[in-house]
């Protein structure tokens, strides 16, 4: 093995730290996906594009001279309404339908979003400078941008806030009730239509936060949404719906996998590796599940 990463153990530390910090961010997006998948039974292919849109909101603020970190407050507010409008326009018509319909419909939304972002913000790769500097560890052999630490911290903060909100607030309880049994919730006086709209809005808001954080830690481009969708989908199917610690752990695992794949396979195969991992996870899951239904054979 003459890979660089096995020769220099410090690179491993670097990759691990990068991966974990990145993974927390992925977990935040995945939590949004798990929420709307669990409540509305919809797979949202446009998830990644909502993330990128949130990132562009923060980037616009940066261009206007405001520090992009404020995006983590502004972006979710705007994105909540984007999500709400999206629900009212399209999603409410596919909630009770076949899952494939929702996949295709959100795929269409994703294409529209990509192209509109391409018109408005241009096709260049952009990044908002946070100017937080870097932290040097282990005799300057491991560099850690402070923006990554900041983003992981904010993600955790928002995740905790959301969990508390879901547990304590009236809307949170209504959302959880609808997720358990929409019909029963309806009978007991929960306005499920409102709950669905709010859920989709919260999901979009989470995407907005993640996007704002991505705009200062990684890069933005109109067409990079789909990998984020796939990452969150992967995390959700590994962790299961509504299991937050598992979402966090599998998010970090995915971050680690990506950073190591980056070093071992090369950066050009990074996205390819993510998609291949998706295929492997699904196939592994299929063989594991097929053991359970052996009696049918």
């Amino acid at each position, binding site marked *: 093995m003459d890979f660089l990463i096995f020769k220099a153990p410090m690179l491993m530390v670097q990759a691990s730290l990068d991966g974990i910090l990145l993974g927390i961010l992925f977990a935040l997006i995945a939590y949004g996906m798990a929420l709307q998948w669990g409540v509305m039974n919809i797979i949202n292919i446009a998830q990644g594009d909502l993330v990128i849109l949130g990132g562009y909101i923060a980037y616009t603020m940066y261009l206007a001279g405001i520090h992009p970190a404020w995006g983590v407050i502004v972006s979710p507010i705007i994105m909540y309404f984007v999500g709400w409008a999206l629900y009212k326009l399209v999603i409410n018509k596919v909630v009770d339908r076949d899952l494939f319909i929702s*996949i295709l419909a959100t795929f269409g939304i994703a294409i529209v979003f990509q192209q509109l972002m391409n018109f408005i913000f241009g096709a260049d790769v952009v990044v908002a400078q946070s100017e937080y500097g870097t932290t040097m560890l282990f005799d300057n052999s491991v560099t850690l941008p402070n923006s990554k630490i900041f983003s992981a911290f904010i993600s955790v903060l928002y995740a905790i806030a959301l969990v508390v909100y879901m547990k304590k607030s009236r809307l949170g309880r209504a959302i959880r009730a609808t997720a358990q049994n929409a019909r029963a919730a309806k009978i007991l006086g929960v306005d499920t239509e409102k709950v669905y709209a709010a859920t989709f809005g919260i999901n979009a808001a989470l995407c907005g936060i993640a996007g704002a954080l991505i705009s200062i830690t990684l890069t933005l481009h109109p067409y990079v949404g789909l990998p984020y969708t796939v990452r969150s989908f992967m995390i959700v199917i590994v962790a299961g719906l509504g299991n937050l610690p598992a979402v966090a752990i599998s998010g970090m695992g995915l971050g680690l996998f990506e950073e190591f794949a980056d070093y071992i396979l090369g950066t050009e195969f990074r996205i390819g590796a993510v998609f291949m991992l*998706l295929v492997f996870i699904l*196939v592994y899951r299929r063989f594991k599940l097929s053991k359970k239904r052996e009696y049918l054979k």
Partner: protein
Amino acid sequence: MKQKDLILYSGLIILGLAAPFLFSAFKVQLTYLCVLIVLAMTWNLQGGEMGYNSFGNILFYGLGMYLTASVQVGMFFPLAEWTESGGEKTFVHTTAQYFQGIGVGLLVAAIIPTIVAGAIGYAILGLRGHYFAICTLGLGIAAGEIAGGIEIIGAGQGFTTPPFPAEIVDPEARGQFFYFLSFLVLVLAFVFVKYIYGSRFRLILNAIRDNEDKAEAMGIQTMKYKIVGWMCSAFFCGLAGGIMGGLIGYIDSTDVAFDGREMGVFMVLMAILGGKGTLWGPIIGATLFHFFKEGLWTFILGWQYVALGVLIVVIVVYFPEGLMGWLREKYPERFGEVIDEKDRKAQVELK
């Protein structure tokens, strides 16, 4: 009835054969149309009939494209030097070499994707419903990303397919050659799909779509038939890809070959637009879609993807049954469905 069919089919074939001479300025568009119909029809075979909605048939399409071009070059010249920048200028195919190459290339492009479909079929087709859809979506995109990193087939800078031999001076020849090639594949695909529609195989596929567990309980080896169904799709997707590679003349990993954002969605959309699970639905859907696309694209330049996205949403949300489904609802007698007059009256009264 038999006679009517005969007139219809011979009329269509004559139209197909005469089309490049009648509309000689639109030969490339007609070739596209043939390829789109083939893709929609074979997608329908497993998306509509089998109920396995795949976003990943683009995998076989791109594979066929790369294979045809690679074989066509690799048979006579070193492939690695060809794909280096400007390599295609040093080597020139003679006329005989070109046609030999594309013939063998298309053969390989049909066979290898079929084998690939068979090989991965057991693992992938065990997935149900939306997991299958997402998995195949991932496969298609992963293939594009990986192909974009492989040096010998041009990596990120693309792969120029062999140009049409310069010895043939007739300017119409290239367009006609590709048109008739694609038309031949279209006829092949139609005959094949038509044969399947009259066979037991289709009933098995429908049983899998309607209830896979029950089909299995009835003693149908569902996995075997699912894999065969997917292989049928892969065969024609590979052929279509090979033709498109030669027609476009340039292969890019994510924008031409494994173009999940365009071709990959188009084939699903066309089948749904026309009506899933019908023989003529995908053909009508593809034709309509192509006319719409070519007619409108130029007027809304720059906005075409927005229009495409909106179109997807509208079709999927409002017309999930497609055109044929709508017609079937409206004129059920034409589709051989027997209507009980009493029942119909009762329904009218209810309304």
